[in-house]
């Protein structure tokens, strides 16, 4: 069975449907890029998969023993975080809260995991730095390390490179690709069609036309020129 399966989903707010009849599945090791115009419902879909919202119709199913609290999530930043006094270490460690359950303190293994993920994201030596004083790219890497603490299986990334300069964007994409090669399934929202065509194995296009398939199928359907006209 697939790692994640969505069947005939309808998404919307206050009784108004934005997306209908959405079906797709993600297998272990896939790299799915979700593309589409602004306001087409990409973030809404991600929140539904995460269980933050209920779908209006249809259902989201997890397979392969994936539990709903084993998903790593990289959200778009909320304004609260901008002046939040928190060290890199505290933020990354909070990714382990699902593992800790009701236990009030983190175990040694959880701290080791946080330390390992800080290293994995190239943040060594920055543990004590204040999160709000980091650059945008560093902040994203901290949040990615936190997401990795929550999961070893699947990451959901909501526009992980928005606001980053081209250099840092490329680094970020490489980092994500490396995680994918290590066996972590990636679902990423992106406006960057070039990146989607370079890194993804599957494409989900949301908008007036729905498309789901492999990158090759998307290419041969003329996706990147016709449907991909929404870049930027």
């Amino acid at each position, binding site marked *: 069975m697939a790692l994640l399966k969505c069947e005939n989903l309808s998404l919307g707010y206050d009784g108004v449907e934005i997306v209908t009849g959405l079906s797709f599945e993600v297998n272990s090791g896939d790299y799915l890029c979700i593309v589409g115009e602004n306001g087409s419902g990409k973030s809404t879909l991600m*929140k539904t998969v*995460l*269980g*933050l919202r209920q779908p209006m119709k249809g259902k989201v199913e997890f397979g392969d023993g994936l539990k*709903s*609290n084993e*998903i790593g*999530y990289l*959200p778009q930043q*909320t304004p*609260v*975080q901008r*002046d*939040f*006094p*928190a*060290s890199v*270490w*505290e*933020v990354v*460690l*909070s*990714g382990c*809260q*699902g593992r*800790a*359950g009701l236990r*009030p*303190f*983190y175990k040694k293994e959880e701290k080791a995991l946080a330390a390992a993920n800080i290293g994995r994201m190239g943040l060594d030596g920055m543990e*004590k*730095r*204040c999160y709000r*004083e980091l650059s945008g790219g560093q902040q994203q890497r901290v949040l990615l390390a*936190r*997401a990795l603490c*929550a999961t070893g299986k699947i990451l959901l990334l909501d526009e992980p490179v928005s606001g980053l300069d081209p250099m840092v964007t490329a680094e970020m994409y490489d980092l994500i690709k490396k995680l994918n090669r290590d066996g972590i399934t990636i679902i990423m929202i992106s406006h960057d069609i070039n990146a989607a065509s370079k890194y993804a194995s599957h494409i989900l296009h949301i908008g007036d036309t729905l498309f789901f398939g492999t990158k090759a199928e998307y290419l041969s359907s003329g996706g990147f020129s016709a449907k991909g006209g929404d870049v930027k």
Partner: protein
Amino acid sequence: MNIFETLAFYFENQFVWNAVIVGVLIAFCSSLLGVTLVLKRFSFIGDGLSHVAFGAIAIASVLKLTNNMPLVLVVTVLCAVLLLRTGQNTKIKGDAAVAMISVGALAIGYLLMNVFSASSNISGDVCSTLFGSTSILTLTETDVWMSAILALIVLAAFIFFYNKIFAVTFDESFSKTTGTHVELYNLLIAVIIALVIVFAMNLVGSLLISALVIFPALSAMRVFKSFKSVTICSVVISVVCSLSGILISILAGTPVGSTIVAVDIVVFFAFFLAGKIGGRS
């Protein structure tokens, strides 16, 4: 007599000791959740709840209850829960709901006190409920014990849920995806706030509580960079400010509540400058 002799003279009285002990306990508890309150934009709720507590006190005094603590506690905690619920409801915006409840409670409270009070000095009563009174100097041993127990409960809850409170404050959505019961923790935070507010009414009165909760956190945030250090620092600031505020008010005969807040403000500016000079804003 020099200052120390005067202080020594005062400290021969049990009531001064009681006031200082309770004052320090209140300062300790109220600053613990300051950071969370500021960052979660819950400070409005704190403010609203203090007005609700005022209304409850008015009702208690009309009913001629000798011990108004239980009633005020129950009403305030219930309102905390209610405010949190309506805050999530999109029909009435959270802020508007808080304003409605808090102003309503204030008005009804004053009305009740005015209509039913047998006291000859109503405005004096109202004033002391709003701005804190000398009641801090008339605490009984029971009050001291009650404060100690309440402080212990708040501290225990805070330590036990420290990591969760951090996570929920920092990023609610992410916490939800990891299976943390965010609503439950928000509720817990609101209930603790309600407890602290009722508790702190004695010291600074209902209008000044927010200051007691928020100033130490804001000061600490100017200089420190991690959640843990900010929390510890704001507790220290709060305790030191309240202690010196109480001592100053005893020596100078100023109102306790406003003196403490004044000290808090001075310290805030000191930290503000320290933060600027330290190259951080």
